[in-house]
């Protein structure tokens, strides 16, 4: 692994619920109470209809591999080659992540394959949502 640590997210008032969720093993998304839109990244109003009445809920943590690159250059905290991926969650939104627990090759990283969340603890405050091939 390259020396140093990976970039560490710093929560804001609008995103604190997300990072509180990953710390206890929940992927928390937001749903608009008015139009039912599920969205990401977090904000305290609906990006589809601007309603401020929204609810936080625990998502399934399941999705499919939507797109990715396999990075071959050294980055602090990573061992190349490693995937930088986007998954499409069962609930609709897409998010960036890493696909772990599988070969980092085009053959192993098949687009649209089912993936499931793995919670990777960085420190006492931050746990990252990573994904691995679904184990059914």
């Amino acid at each position: 692994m390259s020396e140093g640590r990976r970039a560490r997210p710093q929560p804001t008032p609008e995103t604190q619920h997300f990072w509180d969720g990953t710390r206890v093993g929940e992927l928390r998304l937001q749903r608009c109470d008015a139009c039912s839109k599920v969205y990401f990244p977090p904000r305290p109003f609906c990006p589809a209809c601007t309603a401020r009445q929204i609810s936080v809920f625990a998502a399934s943590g399941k999705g499919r591999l939507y797109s990715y690159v396999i990075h071959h250059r050294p980055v602090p905290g990573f061992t190349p080659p490693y995937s930088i991926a986007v998954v499409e969650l069962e609930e609709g939104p897409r998010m960036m992540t890493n696909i772990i627990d599988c070969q980092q090759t085009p053959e192993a990283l098949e687009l649209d394959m089912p993936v499931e969340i793995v919670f990777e603890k960085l420190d006492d405050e931050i746990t990252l949502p990573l994904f691995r091939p679904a184990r059914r």
Partner: protein
Amino acid sequence: MKPKSIAIVGAAETTRLGVIPDMSQIQLHADAALNAMADAGLQPADIDGIATAGETPVTVAHYLGLTPKWVDGTAVGGCSFMIHVRHAAAAIAAGLCETVLITHGESGRSGIGRTRNVVAPTSLSGQFEQPYGPLGPPSLFTIPVLRYMKTYGLSHEQLAMVSVVQREWAGKNPRATFRAPITVEDVLNSRMIAYPFRLLQCCLVTDGGGALILVAAERARNFPQKPVYLIGTGESVETPMVSQMEDFTSSRAFRVAGPEAFAEAGITHNDVDHLMIYDAFAHLPIYGLEDLGFVPRGEAGAFIAGRNTAPGGDLPLNTNGGGLSYMHSGMYGMYALQESVRQMRGTAPAQIAGARISVCHGVGGMFAASGTIIMSNEPP
């Protein structure tokens, strides 16, 4: 903007391009600006509007000794300069100023006096993209492409052909950084950067700059160079996070900026003689050709591989060699604009005979922003 009401009367790049370790970023702005003012026969006292990105307009105005009454510091990445052209045209048309200087300078290779873009760990990118290990554009801009390839069947060989064809154009340009011909095999055997992208599918990193001067068209004949008239302009933004693009096979910002410019110009695609599409990476011309409407969805890879955009093809594209072979300092948009101006003046190294209309399309960030400028050399 009424088509042909605004003209570009000054245009120049820095005297040198490539590796310029003896000049800082601000001096690259100034070198280009002084060259553009000489090109237009103007002095700093003649300039009353300034637009720039990378540096602030304050810094550039002070360094050059300008007293502007109109400023624009729109900084949305490499297409900022297309957007500056659009804003300057609107400002001149509205009577806010008369003579606008747009500058770019960037020490991308040597890193001398460079302003730094740092992603804040509190930003949405800092929280929801940076922790997953991207290292700048080569590992972010490229993320949507596998989805495009699966959706439309674009092959690795077709994607490699973008680089091959642009190198052919670069071979005709004495100022291009890389001029030796390359093959599809060369591209596919070059060092892996971020699968599916290899070194020869990523832009150069060089030093340089460029500047433009715009005035009202009725003044254009008083200047020494052949005027180049603006006939259509467009701009838009989408998202600061490539992971949040609406559609991984198409840029929403492209689909707003491009048609806006075509509608204003009142032209069809068949009217276009010359095309520039900002090519930080090999997929950009593919997305651009489709989002601007030159080619149906999913067909741009085959269109390029079929040599339609190559020397001798019907739609000459990125005739300076592009960001892949000519130069790329970080915000390449200014160099695309310079090549469109050269083609319209009839002074390009790979001049398209009889070219009358040039479309110049830029991207900013990782599909974050877009600007489109359409030029003509035919007088109003």
